[in-house]
């Protein structure tokens, strides 16, 4: 294993992890109270949840900034070894795999709904007309475009904005790969150019997604418009959140490119951001095919 290095860098004690736990606690406590206080499902009078959540977000950003500042210093300070690179890169890949599994839960819910629940509610199998009791206007078709309250919503077509979005994300993956090759070839100008293009495409995607949501709400497709709205907004919403985080990730590594932090041999963080970006791209392709198209 350890061919080149005989010693593995074990960092000294660090205050950031435990402070990050405090941050998560603030996020959870603030988040739960904020959700309860801004909806009227349970009795929670008060307004402190939002405040606490905001404090948690700022706290978390601060702690993660300091934590990663330490790792950046270690990286620039030459403490990283090949073995450490393997640890970091394998860790990142397993993290991305865990994200894939998170999306799988929602994709699984969608296929179960399409293939089993909707036909069953329509009377398949037993012939029982369950929906007659629950939801008189129900029609066993996908997407389910009649909402429980009788509203008729619309299926989100694939060939308008979503197709544009697909093109944007696929192009951004190409520009990022060009930047990656330039990084390895030590062509910093080219990295800057193509990474900037990637970030611009990412921002364009996010803007299009906002327009798409406004469009959906105009057509009556809201998150509470039955199972189609639930799945549509949760799947594309979580994807959008990941695109947003990926954009921040790319922006941070872009700033570090400008500062000259990376070398052709040592640019793990940059690579991790690129992997993350390809991951959100692949998730989008699945979304495009299964949510919008088919």
């Amino acid at each position, binding site marked *: *294993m*350890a061919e080149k*290095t*005989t*010693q*593995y*860098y*074990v*960092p*000294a*004690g660090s*205050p*950031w*992890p*435990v402070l990050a*736990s405090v941050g*998560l606690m603030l*996020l*959870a*406590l603030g*988040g*739960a109270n904020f*959700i*309860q206080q801004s909806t009227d499902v*349970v009795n*929670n009078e008060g307004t402190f949840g939002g405040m606490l959540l905001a404090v948690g977000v700022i706290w978390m950003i601060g702690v993660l900034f300091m934590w990663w500042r330490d790792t950046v210093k270690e990286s620039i300070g030459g403490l990283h070894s090949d*073995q450490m690179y393997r*640890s*970091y890169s*394998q*860790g990142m890949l397993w*993290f991305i795999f*865990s*994200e894939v*599994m*998170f999306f*799988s*839960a*929602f994709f*699984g819910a969608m296929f179960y*709904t399409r293939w*089993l*629940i*909707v036909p*069953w509610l329509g009377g398949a199998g037993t012939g029982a007309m*369950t*929906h007659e009791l*629950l*939801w008189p206007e129900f029609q066993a078709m996908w997407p*389910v475009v009649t909402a*429980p309250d009788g509203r008729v919503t619309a299926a989100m077509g694939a060939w308008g904005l979503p197709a544009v979005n697909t093109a944007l994300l696929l192009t951004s993956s190409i520009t990022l790969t060009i930047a990656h090759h330039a990084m390895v070839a030590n062509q910093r100008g080219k990295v800057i150019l193509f990474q900037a293009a990637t970030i611009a495409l990412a921002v364009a995607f996010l803007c299009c997604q906002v327009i798409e949501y406004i469009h959906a709400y105009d057509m009556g497709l*809201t*998150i*509470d418009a*039955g*199972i*189609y709205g*639930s*799945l549509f907004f*949760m799947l594309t919403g979580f994807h959008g959140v990941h695109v947003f985080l990926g954009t921040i990730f790319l922006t941070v590594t872009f700033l570090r490119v400008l500062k000259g932090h990376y070398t052709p041999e040592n640019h793990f963080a940059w690579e991790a951001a690129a992997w993350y970006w390809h991951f959100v791209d692949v998730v989008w392709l699945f979304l495009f095919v299964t949510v919008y198209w088919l």
Partner: protein
Amino acid sequence: MSDHHEHHAPTGLKRWLFSTNHKDIGSLYLWFSFIMFLVGGLMALVIRTELLYPGMQVVDPDFFNQMTTVHGLVMVFGAVMPAFVGLANWMIPLMIGAPDMALPRMNNWSFWILPAAFALLLSSVVLSIFADGNPPAPNFGWTFYAPLSSTYGPASTDFFILSVHMMGISSIMGAINVIVTVMNMRAPGMTMMKLPLFVWTWLITAFLLIVVMPVLAGAVTMVLTDRHFGTSFFDAAGGGDPVLFQHIFWFFGHPEVYIMILPAFGVVSAIIPTFARKPLFGYASMVYATGSIALLSFLVWAHHMFAVGMPLAGMLFFMYMTMLISVPTGVKVFNWVATMWRGSLTFEVPMKWAISFVVLFTIGGLSGLMLAFTPADIQYHDSYFVVAHFHYVLVPGAIFSMFAAVYYWLPKWTGVMYDRFWGEMHFWNSLLSVNLLFFPMHFVGLAGMPRRYADYALQFADYNFWISIGAFWFGISQLFLLWVLIKACFLKKGEKATMEVWDNPEGLEWTVPSPAPHHTFDTPPIIK
């Protein structure tokens, strides 16, 4: 290369709060899990006190439901899982000749999320007892089936959901750390098929964790949005289905039970060869059996749902897949027995725990086989037979293996032998009481006593009385362990342990002094 490497041994609170040392973090995990074990145990005793006699006497039914719920959550996520992560932290770097875990700061974060998550979860129990109007803690069972948790869940459900998110983050980071450590930090010459079985079982467990914990996060997220944002994942009146919840939950839940038992297999596979003075029988088959169990665990989830109703093909598929798991499990039990066969057996305390693990876990496995038969399961479903089954695999299964591990490695951790008398007391009292506690549950279950009720029909009274007596006895027995631990960890009283501790045990952990120094294997050992 080594100048930046020297750390002054940290002291005081900072040592524990800011730690990047796998041994310190391992100790934190182990103590945290022991505290949670006692907290969850007290909840179990509330349940058993109520069930001591028929009729309602101590708590009201809603609080009883809160106790069954939080007992399950605390034991699964607070006691068993962190205990094994603690063992992994302590032992994996020692076993593979690594200086530490691969990602030490993340390791610290994985741990310190847990006290925060459990503070959040347990605060709802504290409020339920002390606050005005007794707002209920989660009361829908640890499986939090929709719509009990979505439509009908109390206000505390949202706090429960976010605490589960935190536990998930902790588990995923811990699992990533284990995989990366094993894949990347092994000493030269430590090939995969030379890894101690504990390392193998943990590697596979970590894989299971990374696959299923995000799915659990998805499930709780859907419950949260169903509760507050009008989604209808689990609401048939909006085109969803409560059964969808069960599918997602058990896709997490079944691998989860292997997450809680595979490291136990690893522990027992370390201990039995030492006291049989023979190498483990069938090492390679153990590795493949563990892998098979892990893969099959993704294909059996719906056996928890036979009573819900599903197509016949589904029932048959999940029944046969479930029964298939008994093959690799049988391989393991066979190998443990074969390891002991004609060995020079001695029965030190860890060996006693390990042997009772093999016997009692097998009882739990056999009742699991009975539950795997779909037509029989429809009869046994939601009865005390199920409670007996999963407590046999979790208490004299997973938890006994933990005890075995603690007695086996305590001299290495602390430098002193455990107190033999109180260790024996702990063992014999636990062994007798655990069977008094859980064995009669098979009978009342088959006779029709349903689980999760605060009361029962009169014909079950005698059995329940003795079950409760067993519960109190088992609970008190754990105080003996507390004393053993205090004596070894804090008072440092006891016979000095040698480097090898036992009679010629196998493994790199026995090549470092007892107690293991703060930093070990700064330069990796060479494995031939």
